[in-house]
């Protein structure tokens, strides 16, 4: 697995996205899947940047793996912030009119809808969120 560690700040989102994009391109990832993964990176990383260490800051590590036989790309995000399971909440009700829509939860909802697999675990003091997509 290739890995990158950055301070979990929004200004580092482009660096994380570029890191993963370069690896996806090396594996001939189609544009649509790459875009969906870019959106997922934005959603996951910005949650870490906004909430994991608030009000302080800390690091996030992004790991990329690729399983050639199934063409499955895996992106794993880990941070040492507040223990938090983003998958442990009910999905937003997408049928509600705008006045009643909640802001929170949409990001992870989008990730769950566009990735093939999303998992969370807490291990050794780390929040670890793993997304997988066949490309």
């Amino acid at each position, binding site marked *: 697995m290739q890995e990158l560690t950055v301070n979990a700040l929004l200004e580092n989102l482009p660096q994380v996205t570029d890191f993963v994009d370069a690896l996806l391109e090396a594996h001939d990832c189609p544009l649509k899947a790459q875009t969906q993964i*870019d959106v997922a990176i*934005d959603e996951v990383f910005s949650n870490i940047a906004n909430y994991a260490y608030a009000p302080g800051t800390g690091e996030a590590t992004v790991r990329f793996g690729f399983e050639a036989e199934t063409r499955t790309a895996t992106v794993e995000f880990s941070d040492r912030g507040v223990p938090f399971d983003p998958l442990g909440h009910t999905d937003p009700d997408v049928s509600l009119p705008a006045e009643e829509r909640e802001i929170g939860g949409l990001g992870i909802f*989008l990730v769950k809808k566009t990735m093939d697999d999303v998992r969370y675990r807490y291990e050794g003091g780390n929040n670890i969120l793993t997304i997988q997509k066949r490309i």
Partner: protein
Amino acid sequence: MTITKHRSGPSLVIELEGRLDTVTAADLERELKGSLDGVTDLVFDCSRLDYLTSAGLRALLFAYKALRGKGEIRVTNVNEMVREVFEVTGFTGIMTVE
């Protein structure tokens, strides 16, 4: 992301070029805050928008709530990825997506 505005009377067209993500959505919200007085017809032209994230949807929801009862929002020329985000999140039920 580049934001270009064309105002003509009560009509405002905002062209979005690039990515509407967590970082750029804040810029869009800032632009919207000063620009919606007297607007009854708001169009987001997405012909050059690569994709948007939930932060982008939040900015659009901000515009929707600012115009509520006073005007309409249309999102035009969306690519497949942008359309998918609108459909999956139910935002096609909130504003017109073309």
